[in-house]
């Protein structure tokens, strides 16, 4: 097994260059997919027999909800790699994820509330999924709070990595306990819409949007990753070369 690709992946200058070249390859497809999904979702897809055009919020709510969990998992995996193999690039990736994840968790909460209002008459509904998203937002804020609280970057990387790993273990447990809590109190549920039962012309735009947002996330991640790599890089010679390129 030839591990050189793995070690090359570890070298910051190499990753800095690759991230630069890859960004447009993620950004443009993401843009196209999102525009196509917007058109499909807002124009082509028929209104829902129950929720009418209100259901179209799913085309922004589902992707943001998906991103919030996917980004946290990505952050935890990057953190674990950083801790186990002592790879600064992995810590840089984890640091880049947090901000994006928090933004989209907030977005998914807001879109969830805006969806809940017409359906249940109140903005905040203790729906299990929304509640779990709210707790996930606190996990992000805790992660960012810990990072901000420690000056030394190397130490902040390692401490927040431990927190991210502990957090990702707890995400399913929190989700289970909130669902359990919901089942014993029969709280109203906004998100009755389970995907399989959606007809194709409703479902396709949703899948396009999910893929579009995922690619978009990686495009933004790569840009922030380059910034975090620069902040952690110490060898002057490499910096001069990277900045001149």
């Amino acid at each position: 097994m030839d591990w050189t690709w793995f070690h090359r992946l570890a070298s910051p200058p190499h990753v800095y260059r690759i991230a630069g070249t890859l960004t447009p390859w993620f950004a443009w497809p993401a843009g196209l997919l999102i525009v196509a999904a917007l058109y499909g979702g807002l124009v082509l897809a028929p209104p829902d027999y129950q929720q009418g055009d209100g259901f179209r919020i799913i085309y922004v709510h589902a992707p943001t909800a998906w991103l919030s969990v996917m980004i946290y998992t990505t952050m935890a995996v990057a953190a674990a790699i950083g801790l186990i193999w002592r790879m600064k690039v992995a810590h840089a990736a984890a640091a880049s994820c947090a901000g994006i994840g928090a933004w989209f968790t907030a977005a998914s909460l807001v879109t969830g509330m805006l969806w809940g209002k017409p359906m249940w008459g109140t903005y905040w509904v203790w729906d299990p999924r929304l509640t779990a998203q709210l707790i996930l937002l606190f996990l992000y804020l805790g992660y960012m709070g810990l990072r901000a609280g420690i000056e030394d970057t190397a130490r902040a990387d390692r401490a927040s990595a431990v927190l991210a790993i502990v957090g990702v273990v707890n995400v399913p447990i929190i989700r289970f306990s909130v669902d359990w809590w919901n089942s014993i109190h029969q709280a109203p549920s906004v998100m009755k819409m389970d995907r399989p039962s959606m007809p194709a012309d409703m479902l396709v735009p949703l899948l396009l949007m999910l893929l579009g947002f995922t690619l978009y996330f990686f495009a933004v991640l790569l840009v922030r990753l380059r910034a975090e790599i620069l902040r952690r890089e110490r060898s002057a010679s490499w910096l001069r070369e990277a900045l001149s390129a």
Partner: protein
Amino acid sequence: MLAVENLHVFRGDRHVLRALSFELAAGCCLRVTGVNGAGKTTLLRALCGLVEAEEGVLRWRGVETSRSAPGYHAELAYLGHDAPLKADLSGRENIRYAVGLRRVLDREAVSRALERVGATAFAERPVRSLSAGQRRRIAFAALWLCGATLWLLDEPNTNLDTQGQELVAGLIEEQLRAGGLVVAAVHQDLHLTAGRRMDLVIPGGR
């Protein structure tokens, strides 16, 4: 016995230790000198794994070991600027709990250690009521008792009167005679009369 190669340590953005290497044989004392902030304390903490190093290999007994390997830790003792003692416990209790983690102790052994450093008189009072010099003696009693092969001492003579400094010199000589190693970050001389010595100067703090 203890070899360090190409050690690089950063504190925040400061490149504190640059490509530091040395070899220390059994029975030898390494005196580490340098201006304040040069990185003497950082070196000691890096040697015992309390501080992460960017790069660098450590060989203990000729074998490359991780700086935080339990086996290696069991053979070393680190004494920092201030004596690591609980203020609400007495000197005896502090020793019993600290060294008890490493060695099976009985009351007799602890008394011997206190006797060795001349701390028997104030051993039963809570450490809170002791002077800095007295606390240092209690810390040295624990150090002497745990019988570590490698001593990492950060300015061992702080807060000690001349009599205390003679005690420290005696303890270090005893450790060297027994084939142990000592790495001491020092400002003034250690007044050692016996045992081989080596010097390491860390370039000035930037």
